[in-house]
């Protein structure tokens, strides 16, 4: 039996230890919390004490950044076992990972690296997703990446690649709306087309976050998925377009660098909650 993803259709935030007391002292300010799985793979200590306390009050989304699902090399079985241990310990409502690779020949690169989209890589990634879902006994969600460059070997559009992976493995999808905006800008594509082509019925969670605006040195903007700023208006608009199609879906505000004071992060979550509530009302009317 495979457990499905079951996050509430509300706004949540990525948990930062600096906000621990703020979150516990307010009655239910957000619908769920998300943490990076790799930060809770130590044996014990304050990180586990905090997460255990939060878990009593909040549904948890466990988000992996190091499984390297998009690698053509075999998955790291030790890492999969560590993930299973974190899932067993905290019973998260959802587990998600990225369509990317981060390890090669035993070296971990601390980044989400791109893979070409071909029928061959599709088979390999689908095998990895099957392996993860079997090991964890649950459905996983796969997230669309931020892209900075084209890959010459790619022959399938990313949206098609993700849709086919979801169809073959039964995995859900995590739609990162900021990543759509970042990738589309960087690769010269239309983010609305991406959203309109996306298999939205398979989306079980949405990520929103800020990006850094840089220049590519050749006259074009270079957007960097830095998670260190508020969500920009264009991404909010794209998000509203998604939600209008899907109805309310669990929506995470990611803010991992230059972490702000709690009220600022909370205001971002409140803004997402308002869009979710408006959509719920509109569909009920």
């Amino acid at each position, binding site marked *: 039996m495979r457990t499905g993803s079951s996050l509430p259709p509300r706004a949540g935030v990525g948990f930062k230890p600096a906000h621990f007391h703020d979150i516990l002292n307010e009655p239910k300010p957000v619908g769920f919390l998300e943490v990076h799985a*790799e*930060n809770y*793979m*130590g*044996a*014990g*200590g*304050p*990180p*586990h*004490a905090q997460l255990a306390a939060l878990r009593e009050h909040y549904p948890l989304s466990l988000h992996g*950044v*190091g*499984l*390297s699902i998009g*690698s*053509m*090399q075999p998955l*790291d079985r030790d*890492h999969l076992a*560590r993930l299973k241990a974190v899932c067993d310990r905290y019973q998260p409502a959802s587990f998600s990972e990225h369509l990317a*690779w*981060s*390890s*090669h*020949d*035993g*070296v*971990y*690169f*601390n*980044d*989400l*690296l*791109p*893979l*070409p989209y071909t029928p*061959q*890589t599709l088979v*390999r990634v689908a095998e990895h997703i099957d392996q993860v879902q079997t090991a964890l006994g649950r459905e996983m969600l796969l997230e669309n990446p931020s892209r*900075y*460059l*084209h*890959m*010459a*070997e790619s022959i399938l559009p990313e949206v098609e690649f993700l849709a086919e992976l979801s169809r073959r493995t039964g995995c859900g999808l995590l739609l990162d709306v900021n990543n759509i905006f970042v990738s589309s800008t*960087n*690769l*010269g594509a239309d983010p609305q087309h991406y959203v309109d082509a996306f298999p939205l019925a398979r989306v079980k969670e949405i990520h929103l976050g800020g990006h850094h605006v840089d220049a*590519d*040195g*050749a*006259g*074009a903007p*270079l957007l*960097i998925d830095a998670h260190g700023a508020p969500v920009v208006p264009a991404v909010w608009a794209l998000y509203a377009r998604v939600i209008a199609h899907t109805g309310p879906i669990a929506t995470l505000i990611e803010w991992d660098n230059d972490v702000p004071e709690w009220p600022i992060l909370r205001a971002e979550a409140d803004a997402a909650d308002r869009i979710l509530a408006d959509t719920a009302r509109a569909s009920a009317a």
Partner: protein
Amino acid sequence: MVAVFESALSEALLDPERPLPSSLRAAQPESADRRFAVHRNNMVAGLVEVLRERFPVVQKIVGEEFFAATARAFVLRCPPRSPVLAGYGDELASFLAGFAPIRELPYLADVARLEAARTRAYHAADVAPLDVAAFAALAPAEVHAARLKLHPSVEIIRSPHPVVSIWAMNSGELTLAPIGDWRGQDALVARPRLEVEIRALPPGGAAFLLALAGGMPLGQAAERALREHADFDLTGNLAGVIRAGLACGIAGNAATEAAP
């Protein structure tokens, strides 16, 4: 399947001098390097930040800029072998010991060893330390043969430098002041509850604790410590072990041997 693109990207990430893998394309070809730099930066700057958080005192001693340059060299020489980054930097101390630009700071590697141990203690398993009553229950005749199980967070760092004083002065635990009496110190790192504690051990204390950690009974461990330091004080050291919560089991004593 041969993952040519993966090997090519890996090599380019680990060697900044290498040209960009040919499969990566940008609409304006001259912007490809700048775009790939995002990945290089995520890797190197991201890992430098991980090291900065784990080794704040090393950074305080050498300064931010020098630390960043040193950490960058370390990242490219010893990239992580695991996605669990809590353990990343365990080898920084040995890297520093052989790093020519810091030859004039011979104590820096030991400060790094101490800070690495501090993070390991932070993430160590949670086990309740034994209380005084558990020791009081030992019959006097049993004391010498008793084997203590040390708390999983306990580490001993022996240094020919005053490593604990240097650490404490640069971490804000003590006021920064010249160290007149430059002598070696043995550091004890432990986290019996939620806070990591670091302190200098009394004479013979390190030999005693290392013997206990090696499974030696109390009596033998005390003899070992006495051989190293004639003024080793068993009563004081044992009281220190109990007070600091460094023991979490007594082998041969059923009441306290239960697995955590």
